[in-house]
């Protein structure tokens, strides 16, 4: 370490738990971050600042305005840029002694082992179950520690899964939840500071693993409730029947994680879009309303979303999805009805309920109010 580095890390070096030995370990270490989003932001910043010698980043996404509320690695000027570029620039600025290795790919069963193999520690900051199970299984197969974090709304979870010394993600969550039943942050929201807390804890656990100090969260799941400000620690045991790290594993190579999680392939994903319900495009609906056609427009989102933006100017009214069945008498099956929500998913559910109730002249606004904002009225706010 040169003089500049010794000065830079002096607050580490004066603690005997780190010292020159620990700091050299950090410098010689390599960490792979899966995701440069909400969790990856504090994680990357603290790992770089701490002097982790090599930081790999897997991300293929582009910075969007809706990311900035929590993804503090990226700035307003970065909107539209690949996250990996923006992240590398920022982390190099934080600490030029750190080597940033970009992996601008989607982690898949084909590339995961090769991407992960060169690194000492993997940190899971993903937003979806297929990648989470893939990361877990690849780490088990390669014998790497997997520093897990996940967040939703006001809740966070952290653990260190290291199958050599304790349980893995699958020992706890053996099978994925039914597809579509656990909302993502994009659907359910997340308080911006929460990934800051959970991602920082992941950085802490990563650094502890590298310097070999303290008690890592191996075999423990830390649960955080931000509203109550309550922490719980759950002791986890290795499951001898775990399909990947148990005594007789059935998963001995990477599998098809999209199929395992019951989700359509990424290419099909967008196209599928509740194809079994009749839809109307934002443009067509707009034309028909402007022409004066009598169409009942119903918003099935929640009241706080209605407050952000709505189509009241076209006579839309609000019937949240979970109240639809009890408010059915307010709708007339002789009328033409169009349902909308944010993106078209909830309104597709509403449509199915209505068709089950015998309504025939009902359509789903394809792409929701987001499509309306994009195709019809860009002056509306997007959320």
């Amino acid at each position: 370490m040169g003089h500049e580095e010794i000065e830079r890390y002096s607050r580490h070096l004066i603690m005997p738990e780190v010292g020159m030995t620990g700091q050299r370990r950090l410098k010689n270490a390599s960490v792979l971050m899966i995701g440069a989003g909400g969790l990856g932001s504090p994680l990357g910043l603290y790992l770089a600042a701490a002097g982790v010698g090599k930081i790999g980043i897997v991300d293929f996404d582009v910075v969007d305005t809706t990311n900035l509320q929590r993804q503090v690695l990226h700035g307003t000027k970065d909107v539209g840029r690949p996250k990996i570029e923006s992240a590398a620039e920022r982390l190099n600025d934080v600490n030029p002694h750190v080597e940033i290795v970009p992996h601008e790919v989607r982690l898949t069963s084909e590339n995961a082992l090769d991407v992960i193999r060169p690194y000492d520690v993997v940190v899971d900051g993903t937003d979806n179950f297929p990648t989470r199970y893939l990361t877990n299984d690849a780490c088990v197969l390669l014998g790497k520690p997997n520093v897990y974090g996940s967040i939703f709304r006001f809740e966070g979870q952290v653990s260190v899964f290291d199958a050599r010394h304790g349980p893995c993600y699958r020992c706890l969550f053996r099978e994925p939840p039914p597809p579509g039943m656990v909302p993502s942050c994009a659907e359910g929201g997340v308080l911006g500071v929460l990934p800051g807390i959970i991602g920082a804890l992941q950085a802490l656990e990563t650094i502890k693993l590298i310097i070999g100090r303290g008690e890592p969260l191996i075999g423990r799941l830390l649960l955080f409730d931000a509203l109550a400000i309550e922490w719980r620690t759950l002791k986890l045991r290795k499951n001898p029947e775990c399909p990947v790290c148990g005594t007789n594993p059935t998963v001995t190579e990477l599998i098809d994680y999209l199929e395992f999680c019951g989700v359509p392939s990424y290419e099909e994903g967008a196209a599928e879009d509740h194809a079994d319900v009749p839809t109307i495009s934002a443009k067509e609906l707009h034309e028909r309303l402007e022409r004066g056609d009598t169409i009942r427009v119903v918003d099935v989102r929640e009241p706080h979303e209605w407050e952000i933006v709505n189509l009241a100017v076209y006579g839309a009214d609000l019937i949240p999805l979970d109240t639809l069945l009890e408010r059915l008498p307010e709708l007339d099956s002789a009328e033409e009805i169009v349902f909308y929500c944010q993106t078209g998913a909830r309104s597709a559910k509403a449509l199915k309920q209505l068709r089950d109730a015998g309504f025939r002249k009902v359509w789903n606004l394809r792409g929701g109010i987001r499509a309306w904002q994009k195709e019809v009225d860009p002056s509306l706010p997007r959320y």
Partner: protein
Amino acid sequence: MGAGAKEGWVSVGQRDEERGTGVLLQVNGRERWVPTGTTVGDLLAELDLVAALVVVERNREILQRDLYGRTTLAEGDALELVHFVGGGTDS
């Protein structure tokens, strides 16, 4: 996570009245009375939790999902109910 924080049902305050007819559990670290014969499945239903979306740890052992309906809760059982959480955000 945080599953089971919902109040109601047989509260701790009713403990003495219910003694003899119920069993005392620890659910996510809090005391909770349930009627004798309550299964894990009944408890999840009472808490409005979808079985497929939670992992139940009973006395440090993860309980297989297909056993929820057949597992009757016993005095002193310690349960931890953990939600699936998907994100991360936009990785």
